C-alpha cells in the first residue's frame, strides 16, 4: 500500500525529469530525513543524564528508575525511528 502511494508521489514530483534525477533526489531526501536523529539523540541523552542524576541522589530506587528510563527512552526514540522508516522507503525507491 505504502509502495504504491509513494511511487505515485515520486512519479508526480519527477514528471519531466529523468529516472536518474528522481532516484538521486530520493537518496538526497533519505539523507535529509535521518537528520531527525539529532533531536532523538539529544532527548535520549537528556533522559539518561537525568536518570543517572536520580540514581546518584537516591541509590535505593535504582530498579524503578531503570524501568522508567527504559520506557521514556523508547518513547523518545519513536521520532527517530519514523525518520529511519521514511529514509528506508526512499532508498527502496
Amino acid at each position, binding site marked *: 500500500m505504502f*509502495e504504491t502511494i509513494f511511487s505515485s508521489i515520486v512519479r508526480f514530483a519527477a514528471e519531466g525529469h529523468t529516472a536518474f534525477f528522481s532516484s538521486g533526489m530520493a537518496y538526497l531526501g533519505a539523507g535529509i530525513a535521518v537528520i531527525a536523529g539529532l533531536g532523538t539523540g539529544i532527548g535520549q541523552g537528556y533522559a539518561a543524564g537525568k536518570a543517572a542524576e536520580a540514581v546518584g541522589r537516591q541509590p535505593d530506587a535504582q530498579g524503578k528508575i531503570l524501568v522508567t528510563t527504559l*520506557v521514556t527512552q*523508547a518513547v523518545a526514540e*519513536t521520532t527517530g*525511528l*519514523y525518520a*529511519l522508516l521514511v529514509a*528506508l522507503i526512499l532508498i527502496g525507491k
Partner: protein
Amino acid sequence: MSDFSLFGPMSSAVRSTIIIVSFLAIFFIVIGQKIKKLDPKQTPKGFLFAIIMMVDGFNAFITQYMEKDKFKFFGPYLFTIIVFLATANTISLVGLTPPLSNLAVALSFTVMTFFIIKIAEFKFITVKKKMKNLFGEVLIMSPIMLPINLIGEVSTPFSMGLRLFVNLLSGVVIATMVYTVLNWVLGIFAGIMLHAIFDLFFGLIQAFVFLMLSTINISMATDA
C-alpha cells in the same frame, strides 16, 4: 536473510512466526499438564520450579503498575505478549528471520493493542466517562478536542506496532549490509557483535518496552 525486501511478499518472516507459535504452544501445553499433576504439599523442583518462579516474578512485577482486578483479566495476555516477543526478537540467533521485521506481523500487534485497549475501556469504565474523556472537560472546547482525541485513539497502538517494526528492521538491514560486504570468515566475527547488540540487547529491550507500554496504556485507559 539474503532474500530481504522491504515490501515484497516476505514469507520467511511469516514462516518463522508459525514455527515460534507452534513451538511455544506445545511447550506451554506440556508444562501446564505437568503443573496440573503437581502435588501442592511438596516443593516443586528443577525445571518446573524455574517456570513457577518466572510466572511469580512476572505477577509481582506487573501488580506494581496495575490494580488487582485488572491484572486478573489482562495478566495472561501480557504474559503471552512478553514470551512471544522475547522469543521472536531473539529467533535470528538460530538462523530464522525475526518475524517483527515484517510490516504485516508488526501491524497485527497494532490491531491487538487497539482491541485490548477497547476491551479494557468497555469492561472497566462507563460510556459516560469515555464520552467525557473524548470531548474534554470543557464542553465549549470539544470541537477542537474531539478530533485530537480521536486521532490519539488510533495513533497510540499504531506507534507501538511501528516502533517494534522499525527497531527489528534496522537490525536486519544493518546485519544484511555487513554480511553482504564481508566474506564468511570475517562475517563470523562481525556476526557475534551484531547479533549480541541488535538481537539480544535491542530485541529484549523492545519486548520489555512493549510490555510496559501495554500495561501503562491499559491502566491509563481504565483509570482516566
